[in-house]
Structure formats: C-alpha cells, structure tokens
C-alpha cells in the first residue's frame, strides 16, 4: 500500500504533493455576492440627500446590479468549467457594468455619513489635501466641477496613485470602476448618474454636488488613504 493510502486508512491527513490538484466539483459554483446594508438609515443623510433617493438607489439600483452580477458570475463559472471561452468573453462587458455598479456603490455608501457625524479631513490625508489642492474647499470645488462635467452617466473620484504617491481628481463613465483607468485606489466617489439626484435636485447636478460634500465621511476616506499608503 502506498504511504498516502496508509495514511487515509489510519484516518490521518492526506498529504498531497504540490501541483496535484484536488478533485474538482462536477459543477463549478460562484459564491453569491450580497447587497451590503447601508451603515445608516435611509433618511439619515437628510436634508442633503433625501430618504426617497437613498432607498431607491440602494434597493433598486444597487440591488439590481448585485442581482445581475450574481447571475453573470454563475454564467462565467459555468463557461469556464466548460472551456467555452468565447462565451466567457462575450459577457465581460455586462460584468463590467453590473460588477462595477456593485463595486462603486459599495464604496459610495461608506463614503457618506449623517451630518451629525461629519468632521473635515485630518491627519495624513488632511495634510495631503492641503499640499495637493491648497485646501479642502479647493478640492471640493475641483471635484465638483469635474463631476458636474461628466457627460451622461458616471462617477467623480478622489483617487490615490501609489506609483507617484499622490492624490488626484478624476471621473469614470457609466459604472467603470476606477481601476479601469490605471492602478489607482478609490478614496472618495460621487455618483452622478441622474438617479443619484434627480428626484430631489432635478437637473441641477451642481446643487446635488455641493450638498453631497456636506455628508462626506472623511474618516472613511482617511482609512482608505492610510491603508493604501
């Protein structure tokens, strides 16, 4: 009897040589991505962002991205299992849309907090903001201008570039995650799809943006910056 079989017979652990793969399950499974809860009640960001918007935005929009993303992940696992790479590739655009929607909104909810918990940036990030933009106000003005200028649907971002050790403002379109632009770390995102503001601000995106900055959770942004640096 081989050593391995002897071990199993004794009820001991089976040592598998490096590079030997375990038995694959007959049907590859993708694990389901959950819709994350908001860190606060739907009405907690009022009057800056309405409870109606937060509820629809979270349940309908983010909820739909998660539902679609899970379906696509299952399909992808299936295609991979079958070696059907053409089909696997054909769904990547949809994965970018829906998976990106999930990634972006998951950051967004945490990037905000009730006004009562608001505090401006401090510590290393506070210093970096002043060094880079001159002041918090200057950053907010620049980020608002860029986010307001997004054509159609997309996001405004405060991002960190590890290669240059600097922070900068940029935008992405639709639900493209920030990494599609380069090896950057998203610190703060603002959703400028019309669903993010239309019910409350109608087409006045700049008004929405100035109100958004009233409820930014700079503690969360600092944590992301500290983790990246």
């Amino acid at each position: 009897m081989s050593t391995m079989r002897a071990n199993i017979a004794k009820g001991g652990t089976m040592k598998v040589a490096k590079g030997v793969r375990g038995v694959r399950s007959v049907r590859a499974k993708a694990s389901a991505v959950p819709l994350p809860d908001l860190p606060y009640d739907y009405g907690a960001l009022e009057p800056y962002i309405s409870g109606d918007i937060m509820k629809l935005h979270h349940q309908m929009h983010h909820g739909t991205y998660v539902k679609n993303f899970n379906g696509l992940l299952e399909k992808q696992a299936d295609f991979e299992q079958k070696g059907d790479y053409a089909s696997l590739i054909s769904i990547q655009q949809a994965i970018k849309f829906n998976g990106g929607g999930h990634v972006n909104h998951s950051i967004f909810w945490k990037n905000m907090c009730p006004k009562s918990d608001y505090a401006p940036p401090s510590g290393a990030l506070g210093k970096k903001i002043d060094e880079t933009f001159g002041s918090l106000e200057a950053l907010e003005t620049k980020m608002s201008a860029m986010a307001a200028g997004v054509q159609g649907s997309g996001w405004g971002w405060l991002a960190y570039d590890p290669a240059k050790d600097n922070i900068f403002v940029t935008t992405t379109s639709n639900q493209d995650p920030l990494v599609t632009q380069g090896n950057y770390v998203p610190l703060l995102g603002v959703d400028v799809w019309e669903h993010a503001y239309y019910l409350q601000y109608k087409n006045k995106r700049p008004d929405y943006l100035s109100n958004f900055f009233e409820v930014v959770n700079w503690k969360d942004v600092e944590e992301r910056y500290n983790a990246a640096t």
Partner: protein
Amino acid sequence: DMAGMDGTSTVEEMMSTLPTVLATAGPSGEPDASATAFRKNGGGYLNHKMYFATMSPEPQSEPTPGSPLAQAIDTSFGSWADFQEEMTNAAATVFGSGWAFLVLDPVTGELSVIQKPNQDSPYMDGLIPLLGIDVWEHAYYLLRGPDRGDYISAWWDVVDLAKVEEAFARVTAS
C-alpha cells in the same frame, strides 16, 4: 476650427463631419474641445427636437398600411411587431445614458435600429434618424422612478407615426 462652422452648413451636416474632427487629435492628444462640446449640445439639440416632434397626445399609432414607410419597415424588419420588439429591446438595454433610434441608411435605403450613447447623433455615422427614444434617466425618473420598461411601453402609446411618415417622405424625396 471645425469644418462647417462658417454658418453655411446645417446642424445635421456638422454632426456628420464630427467623427473625422474628433478622431484628429490635437497637439496634446486631446480631441478638439469645441467639437466635443458640439457633439454633446448639437446632438442633444437634434435628438430632442426629433423626440418631441414625433410624440403627440392624439397619435397615429401604426404606419399607414401600404405607405412607403410601412413597406420599408416590413422589408427591413419583417413586420411592424418585429420592429417594435427590436426597438423596445434596444431602448431597454442601453447602459447608462443614451438613445435608441430607428434610422435610415441613405446609401442602402435600409432601415435599422441602433443605440447611441449620451447625446451622440446617428448623423455622426452618416445615418438619418426617423424616430428616437430618450432613455437618459431624466426622461422617466420623476414619473416612474427606475422603471425604464414601463416608460418604454408608455412611450409607444404617444409615438405619432404620421410624423415619422412625413420625415421619411422628406428624406427619401431628396
């Protein structure tokens, strides 16, 4: 400076020169900023002009039987119902902001359904839009929230084929 900005071209003509202008990068590699702005605002102007012109509170809901438009739709799509299904599907699957259009290819004479992002106009592809549905969220959000499918169904109830037939007659006459 953009070709056609001397006041002698129509908005449609200027939109059709845009792909060339936009593809020609400036010294810094950026597309011409005024061309980009024109694409957004010129396209938005043309798209919305047609959108509002092709809806009516008392619409003709289908093409006149035997009319040139009805025949063209049958030739290109098989039937009116097939066209409606394709147009509805195109409108429903636009990701982000954009439009679905029924367009005429002036070279082949064929009709087709296309999607366009943001405020891009079919004129940019050398195609002539006959009917379009705006699926930017602003087109439906206040009344219907996120339910785009519901809005598309409702839009079909106000589409006025009489206007589309007029437009088709105009563009095919030239």
